């Protein structure tokens, strides 16, 4: 039974990675850049919920909406101020800027909230489910996290498949110049992508801190990096890839912790990435389109 329990924990953690990885993968797919500040947006979102629930006593749903709103605005502002001026700059300049934004957010949080660990109280009030005569205990957090991940996933895919803005995203991700000639506002589409990714980051932050309830200015950094690994693992730019990559990564991490070594768990995670990249450089679902001339 303990295996099933580990597996469920892994899927739950993986769902959080998947939600974060969606932000990475969408931004990469459309703006062709790695937004390394994405993990820190999660941290900011978690602080917003922490302050709203624990300090001002706002109801949980309102706090989450507030956090999503703050992160959305933050994401769009970061894009506008830090990345948009570099649209035609080299990829390295954009990457370094993203790392700079990441440190900036961490230090702003340090300044405002201090370095001490905040005890985040779970926003999930659902009772755990007991199965197999009490041998298997599924926490409310697990159920809510996995359900949230699936719902987000389905909604996002439907949005891209059926909405006009989603079609614009597909076009921009493939060829921004040609998309402009179709009348698509490329800058607007990129901003929308950052908005969606950042709102998802807020949700991921809340779910992450509900399961692992310690909040510091560095809370977002490691999950951010792992979600990036998940996105690459699944095939960066692919939405189902982010989902599968995230879940697999969470499962590998928890099973590695449980059966191999809790100290080496992260090393195992990154080793898996290296192996995948050696065997299949485009990731599990990444595809290389052959263009005919």
């Amino acid at each position, binding site marked *: 039974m303990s295996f099933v329990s580990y597996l469920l924990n892994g899927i739950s953690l993986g769902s959080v990675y998947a939600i974060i990885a969606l932000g990475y993968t969408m931004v990469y797919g459309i703006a062709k850049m790695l937004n390394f500040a994405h993990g820190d947006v999660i941290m900011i979102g978690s602080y917003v919920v922490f302050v709203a629930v624990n300090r001002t006593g706002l109801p949980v749903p309102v706090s989450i909406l507030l956090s999503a709103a703050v992160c959305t605005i933050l994401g769009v502002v970061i894009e506008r101020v830090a990345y948009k001026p570099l649209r035609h700059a080299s990829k390295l300049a954009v990457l370094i800027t993203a790392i700079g934004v990441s440190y900036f957010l961490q230090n702003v949080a340090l300044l405002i909230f201090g370095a001490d660990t905040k005890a985040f109280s779970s926003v999930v009030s659902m009772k755990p489910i007991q199965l197999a005569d009490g041998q298997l205990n599924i926490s409310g957090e697990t159920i809510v996290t996995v359900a949230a991940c699936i719902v987000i996933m389905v909604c996002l895919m439907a949005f891209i498949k059926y909405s006009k803005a989603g079609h614009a995203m597909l076009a921009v991700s493939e060829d921004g*110049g040609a998309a402009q*000639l179709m009348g698509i506002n490329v800058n607007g589409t990129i901003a929308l992508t950052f908005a969606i990714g950042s709102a998802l980051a807020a949700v991921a932050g809340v779910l992450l801190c509900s399961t692992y309830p310690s909040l510091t200015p560095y809370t977002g950094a490691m999950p951010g990096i792992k979600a990036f690994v998940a996105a690459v693992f699944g095939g960066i730019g692919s939405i189902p890839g982010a989902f599968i990559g995230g879940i697999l990564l969470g499962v590998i991490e928890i099973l590695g912790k449980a059966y191999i070594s809790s100290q080496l768990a992260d090393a195992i995670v990154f080793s898996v990435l290296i192996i995948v990249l050696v065997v299949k450089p485009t990731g599990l679902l990444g595809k290389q389109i052959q263009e*005919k001339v």
Partner: protein
Amino acid sequence: MAMLEIKDLEVYYGMIQAIKGISFEVNEGEVIALIGANGAGKTTTLHTISGLITPKKGTVTFEGKEITKVPAHKIVSLGMAHVPEGRRVFASLSVFQNLKLGAYTRNSKDEIEESLKMVYARFPRLEERKNQLAGTLSGGEQQMLAMGRALMSNPRIILMDEPSMGLSPIFVNEIFDIIKQVSAGGTTVLLVEQNAKKALSIADRGYVLETGKIVLSGKAEELLNDESVKKAYLGE
């Protein structure tokens, strides 16, 4: 008044001047050929007209409205479509999705449906392959798709950049036939081509571009018979 008027255009890439003060005009219903060698500035001129590049000096006026600084994505809905060099179809999307994106700025479902029927009638091959990914089409078919996609915005003028590039002779003839049909259908055409002979044979008037300047202009048949054009561009 001309439908499209380019006046004293100067375009720079960094320090390098690509267009050195050109002026020309396109009247409604015409087919205009812009010919010249590689690097003469033909593509730059089209990019400047459709807003992908902002010129340093000069103006672009379309149907009496100055559009020099209007961004590319706002130009489509004014009635101008641009078929880019190298086709630039969305390779991982289906033919149908590509065509739908061509009508991105339009809202009336009925009108889009009508345009789709018109495009399918003009390019039956696209209808046969509507569910196929654009990247799997042959070069000629991709060119048809790029043209169909541009027509989906129901333009009054269409800019075409090297539509015959890299195509087999059979497709080249077919593409030029289609350009003639598009023109006969009432759409004004500004055509950029290295295949000067073909371009001039379907054009009303032509301009010859050389290192960023217009060196010659006139009726297409006059240019076809011009000795210097013959020597430099027609291989005669």
